[in-house]
């Protein structure tokens, strides 16, 4: 138990140290612009398909379930309102976050872990490159900036999915659905839908980097790091979602 607690404290300490080094590297040169653009592509464009599919089916199933329930109260025209509120504030950010943590967080941990165990990270340092600046900062920048965009797209396509089901399954007219979607949204909801993914993206990427850069034990260690990264970042996505939601509710509502 004592050893477990010590290990946990050490992990937190190293994670905080990584964040401090990232913070310093973000505001002082050198900057690796080409690597940052590559990460925008890898994290943003690379995750697009999985995030869009997740968003689409979530919107569809949400419409299906809520439509049946609302129908019992003669309120099937309210489906759009329910979908927009759920997708924008909660499901868009969280589900895209979970998708990205599975795809990107694991990829980062595996890539950095492999580089570490094959001495490529040491080679970078020997060649005069700070791995934090070269490998971590571009990924953090891409995670923080692309995650809100992915979330917005997932939310948008979720609403479209909800519209398709509302139209075909519940025969709700398109104008009624979209009017209901807009009526269900408040500006605070939109802010929440944009701000939350920033924190979620930051969490996924920094956990992936932290776990990857602390890989030990050769190729088996890379496998363990990958698994750990997915588990830790998935749980962290939900925990961060709760904490940021709580703070935003206090600040905005």
């Amino acid at each position: 138990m004592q050893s477990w607690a010590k290990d946990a404290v050490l992990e937190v300490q190293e994670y905080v140290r990584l964040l401090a080094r990232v913070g310093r590297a973000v505001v002082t040169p050198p900057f690796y612009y080409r690597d940052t653009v590559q990460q925008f592509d890898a994290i943003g464009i690379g995750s697009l398909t999985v995030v869009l599919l997740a968003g689409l089916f979530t919107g569809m199933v949400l419409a299906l379930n809520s439509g049946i329930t609302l129908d019992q109260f003669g309120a099937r025209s309210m489906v759009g309102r329910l979908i927009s509120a759920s997708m924008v504030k909660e499901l868009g950010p969280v589900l895209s976050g979970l998708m990205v943590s599975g795809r990107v967080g694991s990829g980062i941990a595996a890539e950095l872990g492999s580089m570490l165990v094959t001495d490529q990270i040491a080679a970078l340092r020997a060649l005069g490159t700070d791995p934090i600046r070269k490998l971590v900062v571009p990924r953090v920048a891409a995670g923080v900036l692309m995650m809100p965009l992915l979330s917005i797209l997932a939310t948008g396509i979720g609403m479209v999915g909800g519209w398709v089901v509302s139209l075909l399954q519940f025969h709700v007219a398109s104008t009624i659905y979209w009017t209901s979607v807009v009526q269900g949204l408040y500006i605070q909801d939109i802010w929440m839908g944009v701000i939350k993914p920033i924190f979620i993206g930051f969490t996924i990427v920094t956990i992936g980097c932290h776990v990857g850069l602390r890989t030990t034990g050769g190729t088996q260690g890379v496998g363990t790091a990958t698994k750990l990264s997915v588990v830790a970042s998935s749980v962290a996505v939900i925990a961060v979602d709760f904490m940021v939601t709580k703070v935003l509710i206090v600040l905005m509502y």
Partner: protein
Amino acid sequence: MGPGGPIVVFDGVWLAFDEKEILRDVSFTLRTGHTKIFLGASGAGKSTILRLTLGLLKPDAGRIFVNGEQIEAMSEDDLMQVRADLGMVFQEGALFDSLTVGENVGYKLSEELQWPAERADGRVREVLGFIGLTEFIDRMPSELSGGQRRRVAIARAMAAKPRILLYDEPTTGLDPITSLTVDEEIIKLRDLEGVSSVLVTHQLRDAFFVAEHAAKKNGDVTFERADRGKADEAEFIMLKDGRIHFEGNASELRAAAGTDGYIASFLS
């Protein structure tokens, strides 16, 4: 730091990982243009010395000087300046998987030194020519053999013309013929480019070849047995349980095998 002056100095260096002591009171001096060859069993702390020299690890006690700079307490940013004059060849090459051979070799020139593309490309072709792999410039590391990867790693380490090169088991796992080509690259860099070298190996044949041969250039590069003065510039250090067990030139190492059981068993 003139010829023969100290360029790497370890002064009473101690290092332990958790409870295990890796290095105990290790002191030595590498002089400019000379070679230090570290021998010892696996886990004796040989590779650790290279990582300490680069500042990748920090000692628990003792002082380390590289190019006259005391590095053991330096920050990572300050160490980057020291590393500008150091090159390291890692055990398995440690080439960057996602970059071509040319990009690997030119990494430091284009990414860190910001050389214009044309100048960097010229230098990359020059060093690849030096190791005889120019035609591999566009290949990926995964397409190279083990020996070619080591030679590309040497090219990458030497591209920015460092004055000190560190070799971590550069011939381990290679066949004797390929090992010989790697040994010859090490000798060429030392004798033709004036690079000071630290070589960590447990391949005795390669260690003695590097210590006892010299490169000459009369049009083509030739390798011949080094005269006594030249051979004395290569010193062996044998580590045992983290301590320096022996220090001396190749002849002294052979002579010590007559009286020292550990060295005798190692050399046999």
